[in-house]
């Protein structure tokens, strides 16, 4: 296999993922509507309930909508990561994953391609949301839109890899609803997406530490800081670490030599 063949394989997988995403209109719409509902209803409802004091990276008092926007961007990526792992489980049940498995490319590489493809799709979704959010007066500095790109890549990879790990350990599609409940919601709520962590600390120290360990908090903070042209080194390091760990775990989970998949298929 030559380098050119690897590149073609990657672009083929990204193209397929993009085509699937565009052709499944419902998926595209729901991915977009979900954060907008949060923004339009939830944030409006809590507008006066939660006053947010000046905390970095913000330099002035900000309305609640502005505070939760980065968390909603991360939520888009979280859902996307889970959705692409859902499609892996679906592909495995329906047999179309076999196409992938008879490719001469190494298994780990195919998995990384899949991860990159999912991340690319999630980044497009995030930008579409940010453009719409601009009309809600969520107006980060113009350069922030550029600066947030690497943050979106990192968090997209981390959340996508988490999805892959889950999909390699899930046997059937039916189990997936459970994952939604036990992964997406706890991750989203026990994080800094909806409320600043110093407030959480005031009410419960345990919860505060859960939020601190939660990779989703750090994805949110990374995006938040980048969007306002600041760099949160701790979050960047933590997100990178989690991304690497999840990717390795996914490669392990999908390695035929380890028999995880083989055992799963037999069972």
């Amino acid at each position, binding site marked *: 296999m030559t380098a050119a063949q690897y590149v*073609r394989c990657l672009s083929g997988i990204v193209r397929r993922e993009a085509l*699937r995403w565009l052709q499944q209109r419902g998926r595209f719409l729901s991915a977009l509507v979900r954060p907008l509902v949060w923004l339009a209803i939830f944030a409006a409802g809590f507008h006066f309930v939660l006053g947010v004091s000046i905390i970095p990276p913000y330099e002035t008092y900000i309305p609640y909508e502005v505070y939760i926007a980065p968390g909603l961007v991360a939520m888009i990526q979280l859902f996307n990561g889970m959705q692409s792992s859902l499609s892996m489980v679906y592909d495995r049940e329906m*047999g179309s994953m*076999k*196409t992938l498995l008879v490719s*001469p*490319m190494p298994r780990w590489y195919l998995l990384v391609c899949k991860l990159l493809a999912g991340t690319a799709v999630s980044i497009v979704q995030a930008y579409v949301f940010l453009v719409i959010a601009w009309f809600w007066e969520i107006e980060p500095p113009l350069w922030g839109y550029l600066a947030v790109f690497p943050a979106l890549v990192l968090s997209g990879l981390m959340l996508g890899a988490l999805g892959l790990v889950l999909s390699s350990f899930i046997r059937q599609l039916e189990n997936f609803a459970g994952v939604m409940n036990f992964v997406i919601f706890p991750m989203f709520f026990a994080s800094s997406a909806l409320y600043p962590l110093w407030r959480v600390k005031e009410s419960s120290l345990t919860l505060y530490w859960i939020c601190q360990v939660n990779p989703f908090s750090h994805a949110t903070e990374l995006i938040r800081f980048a969007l306002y042209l600041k760099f949160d080194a701790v979050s960047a390091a933590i997100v990178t670490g989690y991304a690497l760990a999840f990717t390795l775990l996914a490669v392990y989970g999908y390695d035929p030599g380890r028999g995880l998949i083989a055992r799963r298929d037999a069972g």
Partner: protein
Amino acid sequence: MRREPSAALARTGVVFQQPTLDLDLTVEQNLYYQAALHGIARSVAAPRIAAELDRIGLGERRHDRARALSGGQRRRVELARALLHDPVLLLLDEPTVGLDIESRQLLLDHVRALCKERRLAVLWATHLIDEATDESTVIVLHRGVVEAQGRVSEVVADTGQKTLRGAFDALVAGKGSIR
């Protein structure tokens, strides 16, 4: 296969028993995807895809979603897909399961024609015994054990039967029925 999986897979085409087309994509997109998985450039894949689709008589449906095709047509697309990277060995795992009589015949004729035209070895797994003609080489597998191997005419003669069907029954008789 175990020692050099990549090299082996690069020269093997596979048609699975289970349908494996991506139903949300068009016929052509499915084929391009497969070509990419083998590292084939789109410019190289394009004429091959056109040729393979014409050969199976689905050239005009290249822009249709795979979902819109009938079972037999999907099967033929899967066959075309397995041939895109010009394999030397083609594996077909019960490819005619669930197909109507006409589609089944079409597929059989098509694969036989391929064997004659190209340097292509075909391993066709089936439990529909009449799919093997007299010139075929067969391996009779029963519960993972090779019961007989050779040209159909030889296998039939060795068992003292008149047809392959009879030969199969004789070979597996008393060895634990699968029925």
